[in-house]
């Protein structure tokens, strides 16, 4: 029996609802309909009154979640697409993120963001928001890239006493399958070395992990052993694991699907340069999406974000320095 990334998210929510009466889910079309992506399929039937359809009001949805969280509940908010969380931005960054620091009362909630690009989705159904939210103090930002992480990290996120931005990748929803849920799990805040190597380190996360692994396969044909690090958690970021990897390889390529100005890959590079400059044998590189809105047509979209081919090309340049 196999399980997809999307089913893992559903199963994690089912388990959380089963184990903790304080958990409830709030979002658009999530009750009887089971959600735009079916991440809550059958949950409303299994857990009556705890999986609730919301009006199309992202700001109010988040405000409700904050209010419930500070009263002891553990709300999960499903944004239909990560892009629409821009409407809830105020409640996320000014209300949820500041609450514990201002008042001493924790605000335990999870915002699920169906993130990233898929062919044909265009400018408003493809965005990756992790860098934006990671910029704000008070938020934990997670970007699971595997079926196991989707399951275990979501479960752990729900138990945390802080607001968590949970960036699920829509491309992985159906494409990514595991034979079964792995028992192996790493705690939130730890990166994972997915592939060991010695010639260069690729530090990446979410769907770009899989593109990077394919690029590493390409480079292996040329005799290069590429180490691939999955950040898993954007904030906190596991600087130690990144530095240890660069110490082994001397070369760094940071890959992300988000827009290029600032952001996660810039953070990775600046941490390595600031704390591990002496470890580098070549200038570190970053690879991101292009600095334009995300195009609709698959021809343009495929050229907008990093792919295995462009990652492999960047690696060849890095190795040729």
């Amino acid at each position, binding site marked *: 029996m196999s399980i997809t990334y999307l089913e893992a998210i559903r199963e994690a929510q089912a388990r959380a609802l089963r184990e903790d009466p*304080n958990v*409830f889910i709030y979002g658009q079309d999530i009750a009887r309909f089971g959600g735009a992506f079916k991440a809550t399929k059958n949950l409303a039937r299994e857990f009556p009154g*705890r999986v609730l359809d*919301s*009006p199309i*009001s*992202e*700001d*109010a*949805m*988040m*405000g*409700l*979640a*904050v*209010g*419930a*969280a*500070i*009263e*002891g*509940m553990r*709300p999960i908010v499903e944004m239909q697409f990560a892009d629409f969380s821009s*409407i809830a931005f*105020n*409640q996320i960054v*000014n*209300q949820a*993120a*500041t609450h*514990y*620091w*201002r*008042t001493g*009362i*924790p605000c335990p909630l999870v915002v699920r963001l169906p993130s990233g690009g898929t062919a044909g989705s265009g400018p408003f159904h493809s965005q990756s928001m992790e860098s934006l939210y990671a910029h704000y*103090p*008070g938020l*934990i930002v997670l970007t699971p890239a595997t079926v196991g992480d989707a399951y275990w990290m979501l479960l752990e996120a729900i138990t*945390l*006493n*802080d607001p968590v931005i949970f960036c699920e990748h829509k491309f992985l929803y159906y494409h990514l399958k595991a034979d079964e849920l792995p028992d192996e799990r790493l705690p*939130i*805040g730890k990166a994972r070395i997915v592939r060991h190597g010695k010639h260069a380190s690729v530090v990446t996360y979410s769907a770009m992990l899989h593109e990077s692994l394919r690029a590493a396969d390409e480079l292996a044909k040329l005799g290069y052993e590429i180490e691939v690090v999955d950040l898993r958690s954007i*904030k*906190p*970021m*596991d*600087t*130690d694991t990144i530095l240890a990897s660069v110490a082994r390889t001397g070369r760094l390529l940071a890959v992300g699907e988000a827009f290029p100005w600032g952001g996660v890959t810039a953070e990775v590079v*600046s*941490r390595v340069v*600031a*704390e591990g400059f002496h470890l580098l044998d070549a200038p570190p590189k970053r690879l991101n999406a292009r600095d334009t809105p995300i195009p609709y047509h698959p021809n343009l979209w495929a050229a907008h974000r990093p792919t295995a081919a462009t990652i492999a090309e960047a690696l060849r340049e890095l190795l040729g320095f």
Partner: protein
Amino acid sequence: MDSHASLFQEGFHWMLLARTLEEKIAALYHAGKIVGGVYLGRGQEAFSASMALCLEKGRDIFAPLIRDQAGRMAFGEPMIDTARTYLGSALGPMRGRDGNIHRGRPSKGMPAMISHLGAMIAVVCGMLKARQFQGQSGTVGATCIGDGGTSTGAFHEAMNMASVERLPLVIAVANNQFAYSTPTDRQYGCRDLVDRAAGYGVEGYVVDGTDLEACLEVFTKAVSRARAGHGPQMVVGNLLRLCGHGAHDDGSYIPDELKATDLGRDCLKLARQRMLNKNWATLSELEMMEAEASEAVQQAVAQAQRDPLPDPAQESWQPISSTWLMETMTNSPFHTDSKRA
């Protein structure tokens, strides 16, 4: 004395205390003793105190906004919380991390407002939803907003959501005629703000916000309707802000003709006169109350001024409660603290 009279007296008491305290805070501001803004509720005390007096302390929820000093006190916020927050005491509820009206005690049913208008309404909805989940029926949640705040998307979203969920929410809309300097004809296009209630499917009321007795009556009704399961209630109080937006603003844009209308009446003076007319207090009793209010304010301010100030070396600088994750978060070249510096 009947309950009607004692409620009025209590309302007057909190109005008087709030006015006295705010006058002191404004004086401290003008003397340069307060860092940051000072926002006063002058002219809105009757409306604000009435809202809070109709709630049950220890059971209900009250999310005040910037002109609710009277309501805060009537709901049980101690005067020292105000003094400490304005004066930046390390011992206040916000410990120097936030200031002035951005204070609260969520564990006592009073969330701490953020500056973004309309944002607290949905939070109150969530608190009410939590009470429902936890099987505590009968809780009422109240919050306040002004005419300007009703123009925000957050207001519309939350009012609609409260209606969909049929939550026991009471929203007090203080139509004080100006949002900072913007008059109502540049703020909304409807005939009366209460017309919006019908659009949301909630029960709406209009009241003379300068009249304590009328305010008490309308909020008593609205709160009991909400508690009895009739869904959200919206009370629009017409009044005039008898001061600037903040202590930094002289409000010179408010026309004298408007001040001369009934809207511009001082609710505290009206209530005081009513106390005398109804023989609920003698002049000397009122003067005694006023002296006691001044004394209480002096004591609170003096105590807050003796308090320790926040110390950056003692501050945890920790924005999340998951301490083990903080250890990872601070492992960054950009995090500087005394140990690293």
